[in-house]
C-alpha cells in the first residue's frame, strides 16, 4: 500500500514537471517573449535590450535548467510586472483561490449528491427526469455566461450579493455557485448511476432479506458502496476548480491565482505564468493522487489486494 502511494506520488511529480516543460516550451518557443514584453510596436532595439536584460538571449534548454534549479530551492524567479519574487506573489493570493475552490466544491456536493441520490433511487420517475434536466442545462451553459447572469440577477436586479470583490465570505457566494455548477453534471450522474447499480446488487437483496429497508438499507448497505466512486471524482473535480478559477475570478474580480494567471498571460509576465502552471499542475495531479488514495483507503478490495 505504502509502495503504491509512493509510486503514484512519483508519477504525479513527473506529470507536473512534464506540464511545466510543455508550458515553458510554449511560452518561449512558440512566441518571442522579449517581443511580447516590449509590446507590439516596440523598436527592435528595445526588444533586444529586454532580451538581454531578462536573460532571454540564452538557449531555451539552459533557461529551463536554471528555472528548474531555482524551483529546487523554492526560487521561481521575479515577476516582470510586479517586480517581486513570484513565489511571494503566489503565496499572497493562494488563499482566495483556495476559498473559492473549496466553497465551489461544497456547492457541487450540496446540489449534485442529493439530486443524484434522489434520481438514482427513483429511476425514470419525474424526479429523475428533472435532475437530468438540471444536469443537461448546467452542462450547456458556459461558465462566464452563468457568471454574468448571476451578477445581473442577484447583484444588480435583486441586490442581495455584492457584484465583485473578495473581502467577506459574502463575496464568495455567487462565484462559488458559478464555479461549482460546472461540476454538478458529472458528480450528479455518477451518484445516480452508482446508486442504481448498487441498489440492484445482490448484496442489497441479501440485506433486504435480513429485514433492512428504506433509510436503514440505504445508510448501512448502499451509501458506502455508491459513494466510493463519487469521492474520488470529487477530488479530481477539486483539482479542476483551480483551473476554473481563471474565468470566475476575473468575472467577480477576486484577487486570486486565477486572476493573476490571466493578467500575467496578458502582460507576458513569463515567470509568473510559469509558476502558476506548475502550481496548477501540481494541484491537479495531487488531487488525482488523493482520489486514488481515498479509493484505496475506503475500498477493502484495493486496500488489501
Amino acid at each position, binding site marked *: 500500500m505504502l*509502495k*503504491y502511494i509512493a*509510486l503514484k506520488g512519483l508519477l504525479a511529480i513527473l506529470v507536473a514537471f512534464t506540464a511545466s516543460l510543455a508550458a515553458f516550451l510554449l511560452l518561449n518557443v512558440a512566441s518571442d517573449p522579449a517581443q511580447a514584453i516590449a509590446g507590439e510596436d516596440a523598436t527592435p532595439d528595445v526588444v533586444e535590450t529586454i532580451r538581454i536584460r531578462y536573460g532571454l538571449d540564452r538557449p531555451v534548454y539552459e533557461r529551463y535548467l536554471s528555472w528548474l534549479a531555482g524551483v529546487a530551492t523554492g526560487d521561481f524567479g521575479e515577476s516582470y510586472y510586479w517586480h517581486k519574487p513570484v513565489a511571494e506573489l503566489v503565496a499572497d493570493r493562494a488563499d482566495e483561490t483556495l476559498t473559492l475552490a473549496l466553497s465551489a466544491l461544497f456547492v457541487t456536493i450540496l446540489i449534485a449528491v442529493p439530486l443524484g441520490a434522489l434520481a438514482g433511487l427513483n429511476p425514470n420517475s419525474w424526479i429523475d427526469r428533472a435532475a437530468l434536466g438540471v444536469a443537461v442545462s448546467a452542462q450547456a451553459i458556459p461558465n462566464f455566461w452563468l457568471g454574468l447572469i448571476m451578477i445581473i440577477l442577484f447583484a444588480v436586479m435583486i441586490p442581495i450579493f455584492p457584484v465583485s470583490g473578495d473581502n467577506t465570505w459574502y463575496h464568495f457566494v455567487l462565484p462559488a455557485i458559478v464555479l461549482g455548477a460546472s461540476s454538478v453534471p458529472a458528480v450528479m450522474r455518477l451518484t445516480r448511476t452508482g446508486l442504481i447499480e448498487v441498489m440492484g*446488487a*445482490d*448484496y442489497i*437483496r*441479501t*440485506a*433486504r*432479506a*435480513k*429485514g*433492512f*429497508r428504506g433509510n*436503514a438499507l440505504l445508510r*448501512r*448497505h448502499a451509501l*458506502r*458502496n455508491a459513494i*466510493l466512486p463519487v469521492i474520488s471524482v470529487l477530488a479530481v473535480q477539486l483539482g479542476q476548480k483551480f483551473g476554473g478559477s481563471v474565468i470566475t475570478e476575473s468575472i467577480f474580480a477576486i484577487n486570486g491565482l486565477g486572476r493573476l494567471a490571466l493578467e500575467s498571460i496578458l502582460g507576458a509576465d513569463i515567470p509568473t505564468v510559469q509558476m502558476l502552471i506548475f502550481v496548477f499542475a501540481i494541484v491537479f495531479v495531487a488531487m488525482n493522487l488523493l482520489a486514488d488514495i481515498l479509493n484505496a483507503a*475506503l*475500498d*477493502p*478490495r484495493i486496500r*488489501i*489486494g
Partner: protein
Amino acid sequence: MSALLNISNLNVSIKLPHGTLSAVRDTTITLQKGRSLGIVGESGSGKSMTALSLMRLLPRSGDFTADAIEFDGTNLLSLDDRRFAETISGPGIGMIFQEPMTSLNPVYTIGRQMTEAAVWRGMMSAPAARTKAIALLDRVGIPDPEGRMSQYPHQMSGGQRQRVMIAMTLMLDPKLLIADEPTTALDVTVQAQILDLLDDLRRERDMGMILISHDLAVVAQRTDAVAVMYGGEMIEQGPAEAVLRLPAHPYTQSLLNAIPQISGAPGRLGAIPGLVPSIMQATNTCIFAPRCAHAHAACTAQRPPSRAQGGGHMCRCVLDTPPTIVTSVTPLRASAPQPDTEPVLSARDVTRVYTSRRGMFGPKRDIRALDDVSLDLRKGETLALIGESGSGKSTLARILLGLDHPTSGAVFMGGRPVAEVAVKDRAHFVQPVFQDPYSSLNPRRRLAEIIARPLELSGHGSAAENDALVRSTLELVRLPLRLLHAYPSQLSGGQRQRVAIARALVTKPQVLVCDEPTSALDVSIQAQILNLLDDLKAEMGLTCLFITHDMAVVHQIADRVVVMLKGQVVEEGAARQVLRQPNNDYTRRLVAAAPRFEAKTEEMEIVQ
C-alpha cells in the same frame, strides 16, 4: 403436525417492454413445521420468482397476487411492507441465494455483516451477537472463525462465502430457510458438503426448509417433499419418494430420464424435444402439451386441474392413471474402442508455471498449474478429464489445443511434436468446444458464417466446398438446415452448443477437446448433447477429451478417466474401474458427491 407455510394460488407477473410475462401461475405450496420441500425445474420455470415473491423481493417490474399466504399462523397478505420487514424478513423467513460471490457486501467485514441485523433489531447486544456469530461460523465449518470476523468477503472462496451466508441467515433464527440454488455456482465436492450442512442444520434447529434447485437428483435426496415446476406452473407435488419413484406427470418422467446415472449400464438419455415456454398470456391448455408424448385432444381443451394422486401427491395432467413410461433403457450406440489403439494426441511430462504477483506490488510467485503431466488420447476413445476447479484441467486443454505452450515437456499430435505441425494443419487435427454456448458464439454472425469460420482460418477449399461442408456438419449435429441463416440469439442453449460442436467438427478434426460442454446447460439439454456425442462416436469414431466434474456424466460417456488434483494426475484408468474402485481419496469424494437414485432403473424400466 401443523402447517408452517401455506401459499395458495400464487401468481407472479413481470412487466416487460413488449408485454406482461406470467412467470408463475396458480401455484400452491404447503410445508409442515420442521419439514423440507424441494422445488425443482429447469431454468426459467419460475422457482426463484416463487421464492422472491414470498420474501417480497421481486424486481421492480414484478408483482404478485395470491389467494392466501399463511406463515406460522400469520396471514402475510395482511402485513404492510414495514411490518413484513420487521417480523418476517430474517427472524421469520431467511433466504440464501445462488451467487455467493456477490451476495455479501464487499466493503464491510464478515463480522459486521453477520451481527448488524440482530443488533439493529434489538435482538441482542453487540458482544452477544459477536459471540453468537463466532459460534455459528464455527458450526458451519469456517476455520478460525474469530479471525474471519474481521476479514472481507473477497478474502474467501465461494464455498466459504456460502457458509458465511448460511451462518448469517441463522443469526436471526429463522423458522423457515429458503435456499435458492445454494450450490449451483460451487464445485461438486463443495456442493455436497454445503447441502449436507443445510440438512443437518435444519434437523438441529427444527427449521422448515425450501431447497430450490434445477437438479432433481440433488433435491430428492435431501427433502421430504418435492414440487416440480414447469413453465411457471407447479405440475407435480408430493412426497419425495413418490415423485421420484412413481412420477405421475409426463414432464417429471422425462426429466428423470434425462439425468445420467452413475450406476447400472449407461444408456441413451431421454432427451425432451422442444423448449421451455415463456407465457405472455393466459393459456387454457396443458402447458407441457407441445412437448408431451401423451398429448391428446383433452389436453388442449382446457387446462388440466391439479388432481390428487393419493398420499398428498398432486399432479396437473388429464391422465387418470400415470402414463406408462415410454422410454426404455436403450443402450448407447457407440461401443468401446479397441484397447491399445495408437495415441492421436499426447502430452509428455508437461509442466506449466505461471508467474503472478500477490497484489499490485507484492512479491512474485510461481504457480505450477501443471506439474509433470503425461497423458495419451487414443483413437476413437472418449477420455474424461476430471478434477475440481483450479486443478489445471483447462490449462492442459489449452496446451493440447496448441493455444498455450508448456514451460517444459512436449505435446505430440499424431506422433509429431506440435511445433512441427503448421498452425493451419492443427485446425484439421484438434478443435475445441467450450463451456458457455452463450458467450462462445459471435452474436453478430449467422450460423453459416460461425460454422465456416475454422475453414476460412485454415484457408482450405473453395466457397462451394466450404458451404457443402457446413451443411453436412449441420446435419451431423442434428440442426435443421433452415437455421443456417439464423443468429445465435435465436437459438436455445442446446442448439447453441450444437452449433459450437458443428464449428469444431467442420474441419473434420481427429480430436475434439470439450471443456465442460454441458455444465452450463439444463439437464434436458445436457441429455441432447450427450446423446449427440454418442451418435458422433458411433457414426464417425470421434476421439474426444471431455473435461467435466460430474461423475454421472463420466459414467455416461467416458471410456477412460484421468483425475487431476493440484496440477498433477492422481489417478488414471478405465472409467468403470475408476468409478467402481476409486483409489485416490479425491476421486472417492467425487464419486460420493455424485447424486444417485438407485432403485430407479428397475421400477421405471417398462419397455414400450
